[in-house]
């Protein structure tokens, strides 16, 4: 499977489309023997109700400058949320489906 299949994929829940995958959050564990960076695994997907296209991540970082632009891009990506891997019901080439009871978390990166 390739990451490109997930990015920008439509997100379905209970049969209706609720947004698009704007990013895929990876968890990078401590590295093991023979590698310098741990093998990342999918931690969850960040979903946004609109397809915001170009990706600046203002809504997930505490970056507040440059003020006007940051505010604009945060507004554009309003309503984004994080869904953990375990809450995904199905992943196919053309859509990602969430479990009906999927929990929605804040997209902010710690």
């Amino acid at each position: 499977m390739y990451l490109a299949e997930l990015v920008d994929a439509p997100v379905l829940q209970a049969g209706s489309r609720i947004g698009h995958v704007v990013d895929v959050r990876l968890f990078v564990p401590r590295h093991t023997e023979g590698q310098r960076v741990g093998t990342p695994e999918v931690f969850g997907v960040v979903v946004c109700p609109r397809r915001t296209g170009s990706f600046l991540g203002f809504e997930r970082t505490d970056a507040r400058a440059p003020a006007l632009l940051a505010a604009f891009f945060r507004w554009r990506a309003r309503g984004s949320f994080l869904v953990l891997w375990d809450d995904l019901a199905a992943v196919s080439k053309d859509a990602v489906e969430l479990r009906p009871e999927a929990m929605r978390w804040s997209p902010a990166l710690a």
Partner: protein
Amino acid sequence: MTEDLQPARSPSGGVLVDARLSLLDRQMLDVDGVTVGVVDDLELSDVPAVLERGTPPPSVLALVHGPIVLERIFGGKRPHGQLLRFGWDTVAKLGSAVELAAPASELPRPWLETWLRERVIARLPGGRHVPG
């Protein structure tokens, strides 16, 4: 805004990285800082189409570089032929670019670079001369 949602608990002993924000489309540098490619895509381990609870998440097997970027933009079949795989074990550091642990000579090199080097550039006088 995200004020009403709780922040998810991030597992200990590691760090959270957003693939598209911090990994995809980043430059790949060899151990000497020479650009060897761009992260055009990530190869993930496969998972079943239908996910039961507790199915282990896919992990990143390799960074992928090649004329895939045009395919990502205009859609269409993936040209497997020219895809270059950089196994995750060669990754040395995730910074503003992805630093790899091997020199360019030991890493995959797109055929066009090799073809142009051998057929055209190296043949021109001074082709191997370092300017200045």
